[in-house]
């Protein structure tokens, strides 16, 4: 576990020494071995992004299996047992395999460039934390082939469905989640160490780009809650294999305790998946509005408030488990409070647009769609926070619509915006705008076709995680399934666009975007393997 890390850094990295990367100039391994052994933050960043894209497609295929079964009422394609495995795997893979690694990948690429560091603070650890992921997810996916099937208890794996009543493969599921968790923790340590120690001389914390700030806060959230997840799954492991009764009522345990522990991890986890997205959008909107970000300081403060509040709201996921009145009220109030800093963020973005000089490159389109669609997810979140109403919303498609709005056109659109924004820096070529626009509009239409009708099927009474449904939900489900197929197919355009950009295209200068200000735009495009071997001369811009 956490005790056998980290390997001691062999190099002195500090803000004052420069060009200390002597070992990097040795003969480099070639071919596969180069990628296996690399300690370069840019290469590891690329590995993370490729891994996450792969998982995005695997998780997406699972989602399409789910949507295909739900295309019309009745059981057509899959049996309920397999359907449950698909919903569970879709959730687990998207959360732990696609969204989180994508953000870590972006952090690997961009954080050293944005703070003017030569590499991550702990390059070898960086390599290790990446390579844990393919192992973890291969193991997780292999559970689908085991007798009794893979995890089938939803990504929230509530006990006792995930303990006493779980398939035999659950022990492997726990193991793979442990590995993915360790990977995230190591990544977080690395990012914290880099941000706190390797900033260019003269760059104070309040001079850092917002992507770096949001990632710093995210990394602290990871350090705080991933061990809780590790604790919970360890307790599950003990309940399953060693006869303890943490969550087993028959032995004097409490199934509700599981939910408290899980959501104490789970709610900050939700913000882990959205705070870096805030950072990306806060970089893109000022760039294409050609105007400094409005309220830089309040953006930082709002991010910190959201992070603190995220520890105080967990039981809003549990309004119907039978909490006493006082607890319901407390969690309703704290949850509603989160709307304030979140609102501040949206207002700041809009104020940045106001009186700007706006152009609509693909990155900007995705960032703008993020603002609008994430806000819609925020509104439904506010509705869900109202405890009495939640007795009707809870565990219905209304909730599914809500969290997909914050995660798909939220987190995933922000990741795509970030990719389109930084592709010139990575590849030296501008992405194809025409292809990008096609991808954008197909995605926006697909996403809304998929998830908007879910609000209505949920309100009309459709519970989540069901393979078959009553006839009155048929029309909306059909629309959702068509939308999901459209969204899924349009992601092939994304892959095509990225490959095209890697292979060629309009050459990009160091400062690829007219309005871009941060340090990464001071190095050539594509960024050479080693940047900032001598710390850059940092001049604070007034935020």
């Amino acid at each position, binding site marked *: *576990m*956490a*005790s056998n*890390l*980290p390997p*001691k*850094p062999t190099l*002195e*990295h*500090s803000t004052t020494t420069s060009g200390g990367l002597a070992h990097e100039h040795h003969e480099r391994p070639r071919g596969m071995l180069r990628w296996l052994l690399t300690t370069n933050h840019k290469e590891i960043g690329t590995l993370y992004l490729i891994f996450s894209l792969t998982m995005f497609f695997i998780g997406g295929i699972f989602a399409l299996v789910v949507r295909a079964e739900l295309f019309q009422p009745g059981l057509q394609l899959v049996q309920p047992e397999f359907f449950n495995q698909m919903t569970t795997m879709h959730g687990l893979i998207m959360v732990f395999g696609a969204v989180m690694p994508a953000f870590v990948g972006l952090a690997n690429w961009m954080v050293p460039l944005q703070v003017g560091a030569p590499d991550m*603070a*702990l390059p070898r650890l960086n390599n290790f934390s990446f390579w844990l992921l393919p192992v973890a997810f291969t193991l997780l996916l292999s559970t689908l082939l085991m007798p009794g099937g893979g995890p089938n208890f939803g990504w929230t794996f509530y006990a006792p469905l995930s303990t006493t009543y779980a398939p035999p493969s659950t022990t492997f599921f726990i193991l793979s989640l442990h590995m993915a968790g360790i990977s995230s*923790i190591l990544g*977080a*340590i690395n990012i*914290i*160490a880099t941000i*706190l*120690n*390797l900033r260019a001389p003269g760059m104070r914390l309040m001079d850092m780009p917002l992507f770096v700030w949001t990632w710093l806060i995210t990394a602290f959230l990871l*350090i*705080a*809650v*991933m*061990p*809780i997840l*590790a*604790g*919970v799954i360890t*307790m599950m492991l003990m309940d399953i294999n*060693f*006869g*303890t*009764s*943490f969550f087993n*009522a*028959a*032995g*004097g*345990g*409490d199934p*509700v*305790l599981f939910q*408290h*522990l899980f959501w*104490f991890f789970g709610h900050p986890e939700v913000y882990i998946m959205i705070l870096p997205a805030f950072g990306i959008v806060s970089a893109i909107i000022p760039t294409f509005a050609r105007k400094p970000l409005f309220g830089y300081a309040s953006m930082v403060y709002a991010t910190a408030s959201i992070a603190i509040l995220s520890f105080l709201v967990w039981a809003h996921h549990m309004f119907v488990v*039978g*909490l*006493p*009145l*006082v*607890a319901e009220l407390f969690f309703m109030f704290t949850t509603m409070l989160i709307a304030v800093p979140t609102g501040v963020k949206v207002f700041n973005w809009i104020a940045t647009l106001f009186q700007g000089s706006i152009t609509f490159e693909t990155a900007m389109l995705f960032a703008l769609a993020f603002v609008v669609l994430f806000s819609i997810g925020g509104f439904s979140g506010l509705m869900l926070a109202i405890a009495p109403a939640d007795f009707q919303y809870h565990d219905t498609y209304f909730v599914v619509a809500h969290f997909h709005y914050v995660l798909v056109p939220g987190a995933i659109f922000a990741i795509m915006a970030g990719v389109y924004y930084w592709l010139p820096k990575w590849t030296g070529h501008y992405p194809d705008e025409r292809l990008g626009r096609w991808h954008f509009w197909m995605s926006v239409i697909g996403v809304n076709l998929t998830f908007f009708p879910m609000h209505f099927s949920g309100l009309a009474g459709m519970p989540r995680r069901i393979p078959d449904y009553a006839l009155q939900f048929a029309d909306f489900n059909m629309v959702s399934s068509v939308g999901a197929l459209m969204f899924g197919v349009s992601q092939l355009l994304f892959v095509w666009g990225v490959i095209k950009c890697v292979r060629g295209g309009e050459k990009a200068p160091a400062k690829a975007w007219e309005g871009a200000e941060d340090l990464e735009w001071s190095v050539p495009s594509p960024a050479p393997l080693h940047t900032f071997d001598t710390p850059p001369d940092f001049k604070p811009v007034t935020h």
Partner: protein
Amino acid sequence: MNPVQRTVFRTVLALMGMFAFAFALVPLYDAFCQVTGINGKVGDQPRSIANEEVDTSRYVTVQFITRSGKGMPWQLEVEHRQMRVHPGQPTEVNFAFSNNSGKALTGRAVPSVSPSQASLHLRKVQCFCFEEQHLEAGERLEAPLVFQLTRDLPPDINTVTLVYTLYPVTDSQSQLQAQTSPVRGGGV
């Protein structure tokens, strides 16, 4: 230590602290539940009768429900399914366990109280749920429950339901209970 090492050292320390905290939350949660009455948890230790005057102006209905969990060939019967008591008045009610199976078995009655807030005002002086029971094949065992609802029971609570669910105690569980007691010892 260079600054990077210092940062790493501190974060790893925080990590281990949080991992330990996750496990500390288990007994903390139990304690918190008993203080606040979440989940209808009642202490697993006998408590003394609160010396207070019986409030004869008020009646509270107390319901007893007994259930058998999976793989539990026992029955738990109660003398009265329902009784009316005054707050402050200590009350005794008899329960009877019977083992209908052909083999000896250890079992436990897991208690739960509804509404959960009532558990704050429920004092159990004597209860079979404080310990595990061992019954030989075909044995019948009478066990009393002595309880008191204190006078500060909120006035809007008129009915208190006590539920006991019988579960078998497996060998690995009872060994573990013995080791980890009193944290998760016999019954809630």
